[in-house]
């Protein structure tokens, strides 16, 4: 009896280990979508991507219109991956995509857009990453869906088909 109980206990021990590790694994996902309803958008001043004209955030967003803010950079690989979803969303009539070019080299950024096409209706510069902080962004890429100057949806990390469907549903 004694001899058989040892393997049993040891196996049970390892099974427990497995379950704990398995659960722990789920905790560690880096990108967790966060629904952040009805939060006012921050105010800030920025400048256009290709000209040096300064603009205040109040002038960018009109009421009763959907905007998708996308923080991106040419050096960020997930941005490259999510680009086709932006192109897809660009076909939606009542949505404007606004890009914030995060800590980037303008030459590289232009090359990036030349290669992959430009889904943005407007692009603004965020050279030192300060605007991203105003938005409470964790990094690049990150997207915010805005309606009536309020954040209705936030996507941390690259967009995927699920998010695209959800965004399409939200703006219907």
């Amino acid at each position, binding site marked *: 009896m004694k001899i058989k109980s040892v393997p049993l206990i040891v196996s049970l021990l390892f099974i427990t280990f497995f379950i704990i590790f398995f659960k722990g694994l789920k905790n*560690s996902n*880096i990108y*967790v979508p*966060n629904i952040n309803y009805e939060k006012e958008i921050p105010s800030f001043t920025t400048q256009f991507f290709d000209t040096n004209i300064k603009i205040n955030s109040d002038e960018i967003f009109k009421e009763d219109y959907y905007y998708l803010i996308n923080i991106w950079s040419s050096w960020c690989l997930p941005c490259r991956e999510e680009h086709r979803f932006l192109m897809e969303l660009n076909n939606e009539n009542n949505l404007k995509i606004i890009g914030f070019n995060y800590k980037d080299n303008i030459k590289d950024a232009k090359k990036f857009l030349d290669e992959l096409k430009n889904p943005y209706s407007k692009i603004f510069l965020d050279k030192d*990453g*300060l605007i991203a*902080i105003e938005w*409470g962004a*964790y*990094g*690049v890429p990150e997207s915010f869906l805005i309606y009536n100057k309020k954040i209705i949806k936030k996507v941390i990390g690259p967009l995927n088909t699920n998010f695209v469907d959800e965004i399409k549903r939200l703006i219907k």
Partner: protein
Amino acid sequence: MYGRKVKLRFFFIVLILTILALSIYLVLKSLEENVVYFQSPSEIKNIAEFKETKIRIGGMVKKDSVSINMNEINFIITDFKNEINVIYSGAVPNLFEEGKGVVAEGFLKDRNFFMASKILAKHDENYMPPEVKAALEEK
């Protein structure tokens, strides 16, 4: 002769069991004493009693909050909801910057002041400490 051997074996088993129990006790006890809990500024605002234990605070370094003199560095850690002042007189890691995630280890003086003894470095600029991320998401 046989009796002696059995006795010796019994003695051995008891010895091993005692040592095992003792070491488990030791490990658990010092685990309890030396574990460092992680808290966000908001959690600190809400705690009822102060303990003299080391904790870690994580959040973002608030913009324009860093000031420095010969002996110490002062800055504010924020989770965009609550803030806490940090006084620190040690070495700063490379990636310590305003608007970036930070984890500071030290002791609470009161609800608004934190004496940091260590600022933890990370290797990667775009890295967000998971604790900070979780704390920021809760708001």
